[in-house]
């Protein structure tokens, strides 16, 4: 395991230039997540249209891993349906070694499925940091669950 694998350029880029950073005036679903032990915070807001995320915003503070993960996530989910997001979330968690079992990840072309998010794969060599990478995803799950009526 090497630090270079953890701190890839794309991570540092998302950390320093977070995408979709800010807030949305009338979100359909929102959730705040925090990691009381290390202090990372993430707030997620999404606009939904017939089960599809049409806009998303995140803000928060914390380490490069949690903030980059949030930025990549926000960038990625716009245009995806809630079901697609659920699959993606499972895939990310599997990549982070959080969830066991076959997440339906296309192992031949993982890049095609996860794209930028693949950059988070290095985290699983650093168990202390897995929860940082995971925080935005768990918070997103909560946000989407809160919307389900």
């Amino acid at each position, binding site marked *: 395991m090497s630090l270079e694998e953890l701190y890839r350029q794309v991570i*540092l880029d998302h950390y320093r230039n977070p995408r979709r950073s800010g807030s949305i005036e009338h979100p359909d679903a929102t959730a705040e997540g925090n990691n009381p032990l290390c202090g990372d*915070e993430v707030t997620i807001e999404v606009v939904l249209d017939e089960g599809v995320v049409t806009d998303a915003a995140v803000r928060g503070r914390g380490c490069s*891993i949690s903030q980059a993960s949030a930025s990549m996530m926000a960038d990625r989910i716009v245009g995806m349906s809630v079901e697609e997001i659920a699959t993606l979330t499972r895939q990310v968690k599997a990549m982070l070694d959080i969830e066991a079992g076959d997440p339906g990840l296309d192992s031949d072309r993982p890049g095609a499925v996860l794209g930028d998010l693949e950059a988070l794969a290095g985290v699983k060599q650093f168990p202390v940091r897995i929860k940082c990478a995971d925080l935005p995803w768990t918070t997103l799950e909560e946000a989407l669950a809160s919307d389900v009526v």
Partner: protein
Amino acid sequence: MTLDVERIRKDFPILSRRMNDKPLVYLDSAATTQKPSQVIDAMSEFYQLHNASVHRGAYALAEEATALYEGARQKVADFIDAGSAREIVFTRGTTTAINTIAYGWGLNNLKSGDRILLTKMEHHSNVVPWQIICRHTGAELVYLPITDDYLVDTSDLESIIDERVRIVAFSGMSNVLGSLGPFAELVAAARAVDAITVVDAAQLIPHIPTSVQALGADFVAFSAHKMLGPTGIGALWGRMELLEAMEPAEGGGSMIRDVQLHESTWADVPQKFEAGTPPIAEAIGFGAAVDYLSALDMEQVRAHDIEITRYALDRLAEIPSLTVYGPDDSAARGGVVSFTLADIHPHDLATILDHQGIALRAGHHCARPLMQVLDVPATARVSFYVYNTIDEVDALIAGLHEARRLFGVS
């Protein structure tokens, strides 16, 4: 070096460990210190040869255990220059010691309109218990601010402290900034309005030679595990007349004189505050820890802290875009150094250094109100003790440069 650190290191088995193929550089002693064999073995030996319940046994083994347990109390009393061993109450740690005062004294003496004066650099242990007692009694919290040079700001003390203030509670040494408290001033101001003073000495007692009698405060709380001793034990020192007047927090066995169905009377101090089977082996380990520190000589421990901290502060100052939070004056601080490095989050720093075997802390250090004053979500923190070397500081500095490289910080 003032202490013979190479010899000392041989007493600490864990220091021969390697982490990530690098020698372990342990820079988190403010969280918990490592333990010398002398302490580990004292506890094992207790269990192997003398284990029994204390005080209540009518047989020789129980007398042995009692003598060891009470002997440890005497050692801890001597270590802080208490007037009597009876003024030492063994607790689970600093946190429990402060809760004991909060519930024992606070819940029984405070009323609506009363005030508790804290500082904005307190550890949560010296904030949350008082918040809970305020909720139960209607008392309220007031805070002393922090100066630009990271000390408790006492410039408005006179206007802040009046007879509504019943308790003044402050840390003897900040676990974030290293700042030493303005003891004399706070104790005098509290005395003038008949308030009791509580010193959170979790960092003070391990690092600064202290006479509780000279300190002049009413209660002093500290933890064994931050001074080479075991987890699971700490001490509350209190002035005898206050301990005698104070109600116990916990009820149970061993703390009673008599129990009737609807009311009970209490045993003498300190048993009154030690409900249930106490942490016996832990007390014995605590005694062995203060023996170890006394043999090193606390003046030398302090001199070593100053030397290594001075070196660390000077080396850290060489790193561009690194900010240290805490006083620069060695006389005003202990061996805890908090800092941030450019826009690298402290957790990232910790991970990068961990990769090189260096253990440091990143986070709010249980001092969120202080983080708000400093206007940072978190800091990185290194803290030193008797086994740390100048070479280890050099390793830290090299690790920080590696972090700069990885993050492309100039």
